[in-house]
């Protein structure tokens, strides 16, 4: 099997899985559909591994393969092949995507089993994986955009999976539209590049960019900025991030897979993929890095204030992706992608655990209601702790090494990059606090009613299932969300998936240890980033400093969080009262939704209503149509009014006409 075949199969299997599940429809019993989906993804993972092996067989300087099926477009100098581009980066991404996806599928088999939309769920999920792989493996910018939009669509479908919830559908449309904004940015950015270069395929694009543009050429910068808009939208960077918290309307596995592990990292991938272009436009790269830094800080602060369990994790995701975006924009590729991978593991794990916890709460997501689940859900608690430690970069956890590598690479560039470096550490503080705030609040303290019930071996069921966001009673006629709830303690598929991820969250750091202990990941990605023109001077002192600082931050603030949320009560409130305006800012998520509403949504809606209620009526129907018909009608009335039926007036008009004509002719003669 050649590399290309393996890559195509990676792409084909999820698609096939999706189609088989979808077209089979009601013939599949829910379980079968779930397993078909899981197996398809698992097989895709297998082929991704095969692709990895095949790729490693190639000589290092030629570790890239392309293959195309047919031309989608080949006219007027525009050529879009239906082709793939396999290199270490794409294989790396494919591995992460398929691997995490396989586990999440497995989890879902258990978690979603009482939901009547089960087959639909797996069809969507498989379709999502296909889309993500298409994005990753695409051989040119156009096909990348296709994959890009497909994941957006899959994300939309899954966010509004429980589509009887108005909150879910509006969250879906919000996510989709913001993603389309990103798509458009991507398309326009592509145009800027295409205008000068005339190609869309990666190979010629990367090779030709330095010939086609001057460094930091305005047109290239504009193009790359627009492409970054695409990346920001997909990766939930400010100000295009507002859809991500709302996306938590989707079932928890969806949040886990799409809105934590894979899709939202597409922006990181995009920047990594197009690094030869971005490095040639340093202004754009700087913007990317700054936006990433801003996002990681803003999201971190919001994470301190929100009380919805899934949203806390969502803001954490935003924040972590902010790190990655900052890193890859600053040419810290290995660190960035290393963090992408470890983040995929521990964030997926955290979401899975959160899903389990939410099941135990019978769908309730508010941290305010959760208390003392430590005893009732030991496995879930364990997973939460592992994930939390990794997220807060606790020494020796995977997140510790990846975040460290990431910040180190940024710091190595020196200059103003130290500002980013510092921002990263401030973010670290925030990360630790919001992570442990969440864990302490949910698991420490007196068990709440649900936890107590569970300790007696019985999962709580609400009398009427309600929408956790609005509290309105669910429309259960349709059979979803499912009646029964599944927690990890009772469902082996969930346990298996969470266990695997927990292990990975702990050990994944070995791929790239500091001081050159292991450099597997760096070596593997080396061929992709070999053409990078950014220098990373080694700086052992900085490296050591970073390790210490990271460790200290993690340990100290873990303890601080413990003091605030686990031990005493009321301390959190005291802090809130001390900085009321800051608290309000964070609770209201820095007012981004309101801002976007004010600046974009409301004006557009106003234009729409103005068009419908006023312009259409007054100008189109009134002036254009009414005016014309009015003139004609008035003419008609005049003609008919003249037509009195009086013979003498007719004769009068004849005489008037006669004298008029004679007058004209006389004047003419004169």
């Amino acid at each position, binding site marked *: 099997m050649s590399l290309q075949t393996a890559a195509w199969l990676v792409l084909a299997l999820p698609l096939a899985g999706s189609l088989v599940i979808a077209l089979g429809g009601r013939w599949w019993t829910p379980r079968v559909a779930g397993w078909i989906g899981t197996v398809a993804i698992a097989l895709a993972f297998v082929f991704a591994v095969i692709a990895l092996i095949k790729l490693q067989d190639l000589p290092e300087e030629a570790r890239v393969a392309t293959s195309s099926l047919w031309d989608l477009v080949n006219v007027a100098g525009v050529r879009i092949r239906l082709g793939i581009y396999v290199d270490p980066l794409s294989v790396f991404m494919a591995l992460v995507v398929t691997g995490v996806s396989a586990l999440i599928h497995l989890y879902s088999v258990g978690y979603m089993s009482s939901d009547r939309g089960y087959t639909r769920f797996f069809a969507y999920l498989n379709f999502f994986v296909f889309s993500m792989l298409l994005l990753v493996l695409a051989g040119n910018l156009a096909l990348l955009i296709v994959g890009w939009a497909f994941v957006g669509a899959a994300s939309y479908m899954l966010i509004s999976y429980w589509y009887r919830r108005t909150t879910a559908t509006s969250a879906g449309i919000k996510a989709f539209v913001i993603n389309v904004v990103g798509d458009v940015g991507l398309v326009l950015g592509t145009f800027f590049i295409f205008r000068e270069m005339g190609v869309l395929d990666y190979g010629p694009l990367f090779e030709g960019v330095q010939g086609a543009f001057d460094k930091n050429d305005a047109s290239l910068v504009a193009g790359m900025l627009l492409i970054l808009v695409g990346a920001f939208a997909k990766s939930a960077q400010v100000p295009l991030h507002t859809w991500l918290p709302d996306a938590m309307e989707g079932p928890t596995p969806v949040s886990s897979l799409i809105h934590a592990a894979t899709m939202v990292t597409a922006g990181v991938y995009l920047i990594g993929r197009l690094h030869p272009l971005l490095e040639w436009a340093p202004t754009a790269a700087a913007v990317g890095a700054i936006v990433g830094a801003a996002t990681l800080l803003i999201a971190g602060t919001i994470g301190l204030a929100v009380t919805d369990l899934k949203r806390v994790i969502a803001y954490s995701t935003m924040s972590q992706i902010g790190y990655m975006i900052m890193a890859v924009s600053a040419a810290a590729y290995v660190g960035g992608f290393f963090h992408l991978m470890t983040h995929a593991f521990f964030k997926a794990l955290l979401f899975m655990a959160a899903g389990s916890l939410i099941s135990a709460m019978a769908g309730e997501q508010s941290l305010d209601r959760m208390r003392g689940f430590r005893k009732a859900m030991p496995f879930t608690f364990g997973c939460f702790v592992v994930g939390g430690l990794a997220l807060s970069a606790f020494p020796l956890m995977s997140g510790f090494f990846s975040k460290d590598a990431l910040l180190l690479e940024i710091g190595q560039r020196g200059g103003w990059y130290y500002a980013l470096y510092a921002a990263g550490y401030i973010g670290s503080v925030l990360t630790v606090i919001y992570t442990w705030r969440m864990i302490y609040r949910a698991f420490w303290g007196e068990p709440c009613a649900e936890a107590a019930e569970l300790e007696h071996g019985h999962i709580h069921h609400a009398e009427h299932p309600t929408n956790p966001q609005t509290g309105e009673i669910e429309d259960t006629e349709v059979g979803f969300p499912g009646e029964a709830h599944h927690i990890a303690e009772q469902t082996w598929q969930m346990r298996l998936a969470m266990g695997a991820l927990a292990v990975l969250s702990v050990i994944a750091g070995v791929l790239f240890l500091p001081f050159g202990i292991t450099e597997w990941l760096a070596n593997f990605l080396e061929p992709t980033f070999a053409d990078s023109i950014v220098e990373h001077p080694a700086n052992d002192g900085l490296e050591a400093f970073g390790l210490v600082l990271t460790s200290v931050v993690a340990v100290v603030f873990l303890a601080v969080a413990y003091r605030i949320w686990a031990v005493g009560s009321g301390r959190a409130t005291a802090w809130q009262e001390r900085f009321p305006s800051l608290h309000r800012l964070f609770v209201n998520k820095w007012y981004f939704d309101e801002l976007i509403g004010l600046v974009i949504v409301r004006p557009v809606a106003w234009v729409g209503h103005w068009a419908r209620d006023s312009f259409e009526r007054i100008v189109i129907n009134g002036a254009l149509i009414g005016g014309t018909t009015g003139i004609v009608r008035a003419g008609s009335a005049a003609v008919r009014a003249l037509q009195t039926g009086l013979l003498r007036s007719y004769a009068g008009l*004849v005489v008037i006409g006669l004298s008029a004509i004679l007058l004209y002719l006389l004047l003419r003669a004169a």
Partner: protein
Amino acid sequence: MTPLLAAAKVQAPDIDWAGLSPLLALLGGSIIVLMAGLLRPRAARAHVVPFLSVASFAAAIGCVLWQWDERASLIEGALMLDPLTLIVALIVCVAGIATTLIAWRDEAAQEIAHGEFFALLLMSSAGMLVLAAAQNLVSTFVGLELLSLPLYILCASHLRRASSLESGLKYLIIGSVGSATLLYGFALLYGATGATDYAEISAQLVKKGLSGDVLVLTGIGMTIVGLAFKASLAPFHQWTPDVYEGAPTPVTAFMSVATKIAAFAVIIRLFDVALLPAVDDWRPVWVAIAVISILIGNVGALGQSSLKRLLAYSSIAQAGYVLVGFVVVTELGIEAVLFYLAVYLFANMAAFAVVTLRERETAAGDDLGAMRGLGAERPLAALAMTLAMLSLAGIPATAGFIGKFRLIEAAADGGYTWLGIVIVIGSMISLAYYLPVIATMWRDEAQPAPIEPGVDPGTGRAALAGAAPEADVAARPTGGWETQLVALVMGGAILFFGIFPQPLFDLVRRGALGILGLI
């Protein structure tokens, strides 16, 4: 025996009987028809007379075809036998046959007596021939009166209907004003040039350099008014709606088609031959009249509920369109005029045939409501009416479209493209009244109340006993197969010539030959 009498003996005018044969057929036919009207049996009167009328028209058509390739000056240059004459004769005679068929069972014909009715029709047609062929002012004037006087009578021929009489009197008075104006114009032209023959007038205008003279221009102005009046062009159109509405429908049909054709023939002859040297002076006037006619005709037709009235306004607009073909003063234009008039014949005859049909079948008279349910009840008649309306509006696949096409082409060719735009603006407005007619036919299934015996279908009031013999019969009245035949044949012609117009083009192609050659 004075020397003069002797001289008179010597100079006998040369008369080309063959060339005159179409005219003679009509005039002779009228006498025969008049006599046949004296037959005793009612059935004979009711059927022999119209049959003879058709035969006369057919004979005239035969003569026209016989003389088709001839070209001659008849009776000392009074008339001209040329393609224009023959084409006009052909169109008039076809219109005559159609009118006779529509009128076959008409009350008006019964009212004034069949013999008189059809004889007058034939005489009027003869007048049109004379008018179309006339080569001097005197012949023209006589032809015009021969055309008009029978029509005055025919309009009033439904003697017991007030509206018929009213229309007759209105037509007579306003028509006479027009005639008097025309006469005065002729007098001035004669005075300025000292000639009555067209060719001579033209020659004198050139020779004496009179084309810009006030006397000539005043004469031209009055002539324009008189002729515009006959062709029912705005602003001299006001008699048209009233007369068309009041006159018996077959007469309206005939007037709307034949009069217009004759009027345009004489306009072409007089202006393109006799007054051609003054073309720059009179053309703006005609252009203005064309524009005003198109606008007023179309605007006036909007919202009319009487179909006859609607068609009257429409005919004003159509006359405006035709005038565009004339004002460019090219052979192409004349050809377009003739083609359009032929096409107009089909459409108007079909429309009036259907209107007549419904007048006889329903109590709604010529109201738009009479068309309700026609599509379901009589799809063929409805189809004919639809085609007629679409043709008048100038929708493709109807002959009217080709006609408009040719007119606009002539306008563009003559440098008057903007008049082409005026034509289409008129057409757009016209859709707003043609389409509702179609809509009424096809949309509403409900039919208007059938005619009740003893009710005057025109007014909806109780009719005079014995005034309408059909009405005395209790059976459901029918429109008569002849009328429907006219509708179908004309509808078919609209469609046929809309798709294969070439034969019609070949027919009118020579119409312009020799007209403009006299410059």
